[in-house]
């Protein structure tokens, strides 16, 4: 389960936050910049930590249910900001794009702001989530076209 797609039905407040954090982490820097300027711009904020890059060990399970093993390390950039309104936003994004991590953290803080959160959830997160789902579906469609059906083996087994 390397590419865990977030559940489409967030339940509690932490599930909702998990959902938007994952959508933000997958969004490109340019998309985040555009969304921010189109939705009221960046608030006054202070960086509490980072953006800073490091390595995390990605662990997997063979077949999704086997023993854990270390698949390898990946580069991750994290950032934590605090807005003037007092919300603290965190972001962990893949790669070394410091600006992407910072923007994602700013969005995370804004989404917790009662004054701006609802508008951003509808205007930004829903839109980005739809785009990302469409992109995934497109990749899956192209991959499915190359899938080889082993009719011969199935026929051998059933006969």
């Amino acid at each position: 389960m390397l590419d865990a797609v977030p559940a489409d039905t967030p339940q509690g407040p932490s599930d909702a936050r998990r959902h938007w954090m994952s959508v933000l982490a997958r969004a490109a820097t340019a998309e985040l910049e555009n969304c921010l300027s189109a939705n009221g711009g960046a608030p006054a904020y202070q960086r509490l930590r980072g953006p800073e890059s490091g390595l995390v060990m990605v662990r997997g399970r063979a077949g999704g249910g086997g023993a854990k093993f270390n698949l390898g390390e990946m580069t991750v950039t994290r950032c934590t900001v605090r807005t003037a309104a007092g919300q603290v936003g965190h972001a962990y994004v893949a790669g070394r794009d410091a600006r992407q991590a910072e923007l994602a953290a700013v969005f995370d803080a804004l989404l917790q702001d009662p004054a701006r959160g609802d508008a951003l959830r509808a205007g930004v997160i829903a839109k980005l989530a739809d785009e990302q789902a469409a992109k995934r579906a497109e990749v899956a469609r192209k991959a499915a076209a190359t899938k080889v059906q082993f009719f011969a083996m199935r026929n051998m087994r059933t006969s």
Partner: protein
Amino acid sequence: MTDSTHIEVTLPGFADPVGQAQASFRAVLDAMARPGTLMQVGHGLTPPAPLCPATAAVLLTLVDHDTPLWLDAAAVAARDWIAFHCGAGFTDAPAQAAFALALALPDVASLSLGTHEQPETAATLILQVDSLEFGTRYRLHGPGLRESATLSVRGLPDDFVAIWQRNRAGFPLGVDVVLCAGTTLAALPRSVTVEAD
């Protein structure tokens, strides 16, 4: 971070983590090599109460998840900030701690003094005091000091010389102390001899 999943952090750490941590490390190193020398660290840091910038800089430089930290009760207000910025592991048992942070001298014998096989496992006490410019004058001599040095500290107990004699008597075992006040630090490695001046 084991008992609380939610921590409140409102203040930043080092603005330039690599450069400032290296500068602070050098300051601690020089202070340990020349006991009693005053070093400047932590300029521009805005740590939470009750920490002063020098204490915060030493913590950010030395403490991480591999070095269990023990806090005295007066320093607990800064626990979340330390957990977030240092990634520190905490311990409630002073004897388990690699570093101890205190605002008043704790019972030195309760900290880890190391073993004869591994004296380097002894704890380092980061002690925040009121002042390193004024207060009781101590005369220091020992390794690193060609001639004896003097150090003024406000905030140590009256019987500190006797306490330190007991710590010094166990050499090579014993705790090392980093004294912090404002943006100034000084160190008392376990090898130094302290007398009233």
